[in-house]
């Protein structure tokens, strides 16, 4: 019997930005129901990797597959299966939360009825109902993050891509985020990036450590605290040019 293809698979992905190679031969995969943490110091290539998965950037080399199908072959259909939340998400500041989510639903091509249902579902799930009529420009960082997550979930994607979701959140908000990711992971795959070891260990089933645009570690986590500490420090301590 043929093995079920991974929900997400990156095969030898490489990418240059502004004349500099930021990703070299990056390969990893993710199964449904898994939360994968992309760990690395600043400039390791985490955001570029996630932007490529989210369809915002194209890889120069290699390919990104969803359920075994190359995303580039049918970009529009494939992108409907992905929800991407950038690091500093800022929806249109002049619109209310409800209007902004409605606009995102339109962009995703959701019909009026489906859009209304999806918005109500995500407002309730992310505890945003109370601020639905508030302008996006007046939200706190934590609220902006939740609205960003809501827009990514509107079309009920199979794969959720979160760039530094815990950045700037206070401990209470970070705990709420962990709980939320735990609730979202069944039925879908989640890839998130972070440079915070504890955050990744608390939320993820697997971890990929990137350094200087290369994968240096790809393995499962067993829920123990501090298991990656020594390994991550050793990789992060390598000078960028010698990290290969």
């Amino acid at each position, binding site marked *: 019997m043929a093995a079920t293809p991974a929900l997400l698979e990156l095969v030898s992905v490489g990418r240059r*930005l502004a004349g500099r190679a930021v990703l070299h031969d990056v390969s990893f995969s993710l199964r449904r129901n898994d939360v994968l943490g992309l760990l690395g110091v600043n400039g390791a290539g985490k955001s570029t990797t996630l932007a490529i998965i989210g369809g*915002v950037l*194209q890889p120069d080399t290699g390919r990104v597959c969803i359920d075994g199908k190359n995303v580039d072959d049918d970009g529009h259909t494939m992108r409907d299966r992905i929800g991407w939340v*950038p690091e*500093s998400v800022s929806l*249109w500041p*002049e619109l209310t939360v409800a209007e902004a989510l409605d606009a995102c639903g*339109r962009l995703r091509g959701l019909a009026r009825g489906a859009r209304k249902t999806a918005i109500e579902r995500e407002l309730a799930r992310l505890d945003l109902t109370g601020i639905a009529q508030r302008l996006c420009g007046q939200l706190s960082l934590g609220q902006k993050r939740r609205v960003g997550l809501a827009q990514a979930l509107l079309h009920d994607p199979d794969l959720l891509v979160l760039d530094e979701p815990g950045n700037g959140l206070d401990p209470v908000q970070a705990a709420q985020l962990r709980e939320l990711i735990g609730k979202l992971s069944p039925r879908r795959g989640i890839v998130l990036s972070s440079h915070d070891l504890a955050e990744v260990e608390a939320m993820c089933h697997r971890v990929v450590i990137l350094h200087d645009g290369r994968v240096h570690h790809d393995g499962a986590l067993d829920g123990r605290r501090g298991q990656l500490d020594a390994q991550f420090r050793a990789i992060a301590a390598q000078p960028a040019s010698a990290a290969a």
Partner: protein
Amino acid sequence: MSALSVARIDLRRLAVRPFAWTLAGIALAMMAWQFLLGVSAFMHAQPTVPGPAVGPGFIDAVVAPYLLNYIQLCLVIAPLVTMQALAGERGAQRLALLTASGATATQIVLGKYLACLVFLWLLLIVVATMPLVLGGATHPDWGQFGAALVAGALCVAALTAIGIACSAFTPEPALAAAAALLIGEALSLIDAGVRLTGGDTGWLGWLALHTHLAPAMRGLMRSEDIVYFMIIVALALALAIRRIDGERGRD
């Protein structure tokens, strides 16, 4: 997902943004004042003794210069309306968000263009309403008025497309506005020197906005002038699409 969804978002934003209302208010106040001055000058120039009508009519003396003034104003307004369209969105990662939603570069650029154009065309309609109000009290040449209005609309479309292209190519909205203003003024003044000395403007004259507006203001709508404005729109939008597409593509 279509360009209309992108346009709808931007129109909604323009509708709730004080900047757009302030800009519209200032522009309409300036145009109303210029219209009153034009009408006043026209009234003073009328012969006091009744007789056959001679000299320029209402459209020649008042409406054509008035519409040309709106186009001059658009050289400034269009860059201000379009500067945020792509340059401002890029900084806030909203451009990436649109791409991640499945919007192509063409849909994003056309949507942004459409929203800015609708705003500036709405202003043009309000501006054109002022002489229309006096239409019953005089005997305007409606054909000439229509030609002037169509040329004005095409010129505004061209200036908007230039603004969108500048917004696509620059990271800062202020820089985009300055670049669009510079290009618009250059197209407006490119043959000014030759025109003043009365020489043959040649290809410089063909590039100038004035060359393609003047016949329409006299009531002559030439296909050459329509093609000129369409070329500017197509070229500017194609460059903008190429730039936005390049941001996603390979280095």
